[in-house]
C-alpha cells in the first residue's frame, strides 16, 4: 500500500517538477513570478490535443508540436505582455502576468470550448507489479520523459554558450549587457524553454487523466510556484526536489490522512518551509541561478 502511494506520488511529483522548472527559470532570469505559467501548461496540452485530433499526428510528433507551439506562445507573451513593462516597477510585471493568465484561460474557452475535452487514448496502459510496487505504463512514461527533458535542460544550461549566457544574465542583467550579451535574446529563449517544459507537463497530465480543460492550469500553476519556493526559487535542482516532495506528500497525505485535505497539504508544507528555511531547501541567497 505504501509503495503504491509512493509511486503515485512520484508520477505526480515529476509533473510538478517539470512545471516548476519552467517557472523557476523565468524567475531566475527576470525575477518575475510568472502566474501565466500554469496557463501555458494548459495551452500546451490543448495544442497536443489539436495535433492528435485535428491533424491526426502520431503521439510523439503531437507532443513536440505541443511543446513547440507553447514555446511560441511563451515567447509571444514575453514580447507583448512583459517586455513593454519590463522597466516598470515589479508590481506592473506581476499584474501583467495575472492578466495574461486570465486572457489565456478565456482564449482557450473560445477556441476549444469550456467543457472538459476527452483526450484520445494514445497509450496502451499496462500495469506492472514487482516487489509489491504497482506502476503503470503512463507513470513510467511520465518519469522517463521528465528525466530526459531535465537531462537536456541541464546540458543546455551547463555546457552550451547560450546556457552560460543564461547563467550570467541571472546573476546580473545589466552587467551581462555591458559584457556584450544580447539579454533580450536570453529572456525570450528562457521563456521559450520554460514554456516548452510547461507544455510537456500539461500534455503528460492530459494523457494521464485523459482530459484537457481550460482551467486545468490554474491549480498546477500555484503548485509549481509552491514547489519552486520549497526548493529555493530560481534553482533548477530545487524545483525538481520541491516538485517531488509535493507530489509524494500529497499522495501520502490523501492516502493516510484524508483525501479532502490533499491541496491543503501543499500549502502546509510551504508554510513550514517558509518558517524553517525561508530561502527554500536548495536556495542559497545570492549564488548563481538559472
Amino acid at each position, binding site marked *: *500500500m505504501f509503495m*503504491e*502511494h509512493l509511486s*503515485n506520488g512520484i508520477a*505526480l511529483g515529476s509533473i510538478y517538477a517539470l512545471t516548476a522548472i519552467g517557472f523557476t527559470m523565468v524567475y531566475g532570469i527576470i525575477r518575475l513570478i510568472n502566474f501565466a505559467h500554469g496557463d501555458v501548461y494548459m495551452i500546451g496540452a490543448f495544442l497536443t490535443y489539436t495535433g492528435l485530433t485535428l491533424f491526426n499526428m502520431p503521439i510523439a510528433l503531437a507532443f513536440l508540436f505541443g511543446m513547440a507551439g507553447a514555446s511560441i506562445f511563451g515567447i509571444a507573451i514575453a514580447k507583448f505582455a512583459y517586455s513593454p513593462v519590463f522597466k516598470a516597477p515589479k508590481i506592473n510585471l506581476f499584474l501583467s502576468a495575472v492578466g495574461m493568465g486570465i486572457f489565456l484561460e478565456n482564449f482557450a*474557452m473560445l477556441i476549444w470550448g*469550456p*467543457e*472538459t475535452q*476527452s483526450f484520445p*487514448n494514445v497509450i496502451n*496502459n499496462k*500495469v506492472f507489479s514487482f516487489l509489491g510496487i*504497482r506502476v*503503470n505504463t*503512463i507513470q513510467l512514461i511520465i518519469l522517463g520523459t521528465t528525466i530526459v527533458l531535465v537531462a537536456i535542460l541541464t546540458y543546455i544550461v551547463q555546457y552550451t554558450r547560450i546556457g552560460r549566457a543564461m547563467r550570467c544574465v541571472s546573476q546580473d542583467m545589466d552587467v551581462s549587457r555591458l559584457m556584450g550579451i544580447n539579454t533580450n535574446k536570453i529572456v525570450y529563449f528562457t521563456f521559450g524553454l520554460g514554456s516548452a517544459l510547461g507544455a510537456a507537463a500539461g500534455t503528460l*497530465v492530459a494523457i*494521464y*487523466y*485523459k*482530459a484537457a*480543460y481550460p*482551467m*486545468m492550469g490554474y*491549480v498546477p500553476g500555484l503548485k509549481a510556484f509552491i514547489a519552486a519556493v520549497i526548493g529555493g526559487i530560481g534553482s533548477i535542482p530545487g524545483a525538481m526536489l520541491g516538485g517531488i516532495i509535493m507530489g509524494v506528500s*500529497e*499522495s*501520502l*497525505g*490523501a*492516502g493516510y490522512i*484524508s*483525501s*479532502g485535505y*490533499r*491541496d491543503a497539504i501543499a500549502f502546509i508544507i510551504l508554510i513550514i518551509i517558509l518558517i524553517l528555511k525561508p530561502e527554500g531547501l536548495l536556495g542559497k541567497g545570492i549564488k548563481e541561478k538559472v
Partner: protein
Amino acid sequence: MKKNAFIAIMLILVVSLSACSGGGGGNSNSTELYIASANPMTGDSAQFGDMKVKAIELALDEVNKAGGIDGKQVKLIVGDDTGNPKEAPNVAQKFAGDNKVLAVIGHWNSSCTLAARGIYEAAGIPVITDSVNKQITDGSTPHLYRISLTDTTQAKNLAQYAYNVLGKKKAAILFTANDFGTGLKNDFTEEFEGLGGKVVASETYFEGQSKDFSPQLTKIKGENPDIMFVAGYYVETALIAQQAGPAGLNVPMIGTEGISSDELIKLGGDAVEGIRFAAFFHKDVEFPGTKEFVESFRAKYNKEPDNYAALAYDSAKLILEGMKQNGATRDGITKYLQEVKEFPGVAGPISFENNDVTRSILILEVKDGQIVLSEDQLN
C-alpha cells in the same frame, strides 16, 4: 488624448446603461408570454443545460404551433448560472425582477437552487426544479416544486439495489465535496449499513478540481470493497472509472442520475462499461406520449433525449397546462401545481406531495457504449 478616451468610455457606458433600462418593464397587453429557465449553459455541466433548453423549446413549439395560450405565443428566456452557486442568485434576481417571467424551470445544480430559491420565493414565482438535494423542499419555499426524486430517495434505492439485487456486502463511496455528494454519502451509508452491509471506505474529492484519484482509489482498494458508489457527476465519474483499472480496483460501480449523459461514455470510453445508475426516464420505458416525445426530439435535434430533457419537457408541459387552466399569471400556475394529480408526463405520471414528485426509480446501465435499461431492476 487620454482624457478623450476616458470621456468616450463614459459616454458608451451611459448610453448602454440607459438602453438597458429602456428595454425592461413588463407589458400586460403584449402578445407574448414568457417563462424562464436557469441552467448551467457553460462549464462542465453545460451538457445538461443544453438538453433541458432543447426540450423546453420543443414543448413551447408544440403549444405555439397549436395557437399558443389564449392566442398568445409562449417564449423562453434562458439564464446561465454556470453551475456556480455564486452566479445563481444573480440569474434569479434578474428573473424575479422581470414581471414578464411567469414561471422558472431550474436550476440544475442543487447548490444553485439552494442559493436562488429565496429570491424566487420572495417574488412569488412558481419554480419547477430537477435538483435532488432534499433540503430544497424543506417546506420553507412553497412556490418551489421538484420534478425529480431527492438524493435521499436515490441513495436509499441504490443501497437496496446494491445489497438486495446485486448481493454486495462491502461498499466503498467516492463522493464529491458539495451538498449533493455529502447528502448521498450519508443516506447511502445509513441505508446500506441498516440492511446489514458495511461501508468500508468513504473518500472525497472536489468537483472540477480533482483529476488525480489515484490516492483515493489506492486507499479504497486496500479495504477490499465489492462495489463502489460514486456520488458525483459524469466528468469525474469517467476519470474515476479510467483510473480504477490501473490502480488495481476492479469492482462494479454504481451512481446517481448525475452521470446520466452520453458525455460519460464519450469521456470514459471502455472504462465506464457496466456502470449502473439511477434514472427517472429511459426511452424504452413508455408512458403515454413518451414515444412521440422521443421521436419529435430526435427529428428536431438529431439527438436522443436524456433524463433531464424528459423532466424539463414535463416541467414545461405542467406550466403550460397551468396557464391554460388558471390563466397566465404566477399565482395561477402555482395553484395548478398545488392541485395537479396524475399529470400524464413522458417520464411517468406526476403528482406533487409536499412539493416533491411521486415517481419510481429506474436502473440504467452502460452496455456496448450505449445507455440501456438494466436487466436487473429494483422490484
